């Protein structure tokens, strides 16, 4: 009789530990799922970071070009012929982006129009 009670208690304890381990396992798996989503986000963050850097570089270059244009208009604006040349240059660039001119590839430095 005493042996049976001891066995029941031992089995009960082992089952309790087993159930506890199972619960811990479920909880860990759940957390692992969340961290895997975060890992996916990390990849996305890297792409986003690269995009912002590229956008910043492009915008900074464009700002430089715009400031350069302002300087040119200030210097040459009073001479109508030179102002015409500046406008023609800008139109030429715009037409290039609009696809109105035949183009060839090969230049490596960037050129931005606004």
């Amino acid at each position: 009789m005493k042996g049976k009670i001891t066995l029941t208690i031992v089995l009960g304890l082992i089952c309790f530990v087993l159930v506890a381990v199972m619960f811990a396992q479920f909880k860990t798996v759940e957390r692992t799922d969340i961290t895997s989503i975060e890992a996916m986000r990390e990849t996305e963050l890297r792409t986003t970071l690269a995009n912002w850097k590229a956008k910043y570089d492009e915008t900074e270059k464009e700002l430089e070009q715009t400031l350069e244009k302002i300087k040119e208009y200030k210097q040459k604006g009073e001479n109508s012929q030179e102002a015409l040349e500046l406008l023609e240059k800008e139109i030429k660039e715009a037409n290039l982006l609009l696809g109105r001119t035949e183009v060839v590839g090969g230049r490596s430095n960037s050129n931005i129009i606004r």
Partner: protein
Amino acid sequence: MNKKYIALTLGIVCLLLSLGISVQLKTMSTTSSYTTGSSAENKLRDEVFRWKDKYDTVYKQLEEAEEVLEKERKSATENSTEAADLEKELLNAKTLLGQTEVKGKGVVITLDDNKALVNMSSISIDPNVLLVHDGDIIQVVSILKNAGAEAISINDQRIVNTTAITCDGYVVRINGEKVGAPYEIKAIGSPEYLKGSLEVSGYIDMMIEDGVMVDIKKSNSITIPKYEGVLTHKYMIER
């Protein structure tokens, strides 16, 4: 016999317990490697915010510089008719490039996921067909362009010649920005012709049959914002 039975039962229970503990330990070690990645992710997130701030600052400076350039251009052309004509031509080119805000009559198309049906688990329809996909938007934009739309925007993202419309999970990426349903497509052009072209194409009917929510409205006053970004060319040169 009884002792053998007890030993066997205890043995099986102990085996299960050991298996459970070893699986738990293995999972924990995998999780800790993810946790290391998480701190790297926080650094990345900070970096993203830093570069976004830098971009916002430089973009604001660019907009201010643009205004100054516009004024300088105007003052340089005010005394010459030829220069004023060229300035008009430049403005026209910029409008076509999508670098200015434009207004006019046209159509407003709203495409939305059929959320009511998607959430009904009992239906046997593939929920994918009830959602608006990048392909649907591309198709609608192509029909509008073909019908002579002069300016198009999707949820205020101006469509320019460098615009890419791609799928990004449950949302769509337009001009690199995430855009979610409902998608409001604004197009400036002849309202009758734009609406008619959409109806005649059959694509709208196909989407409606699939269960996608579609609404087309003609409008006499549509405002389409300018393209928020930079149009560059790195490799091409005029021949």
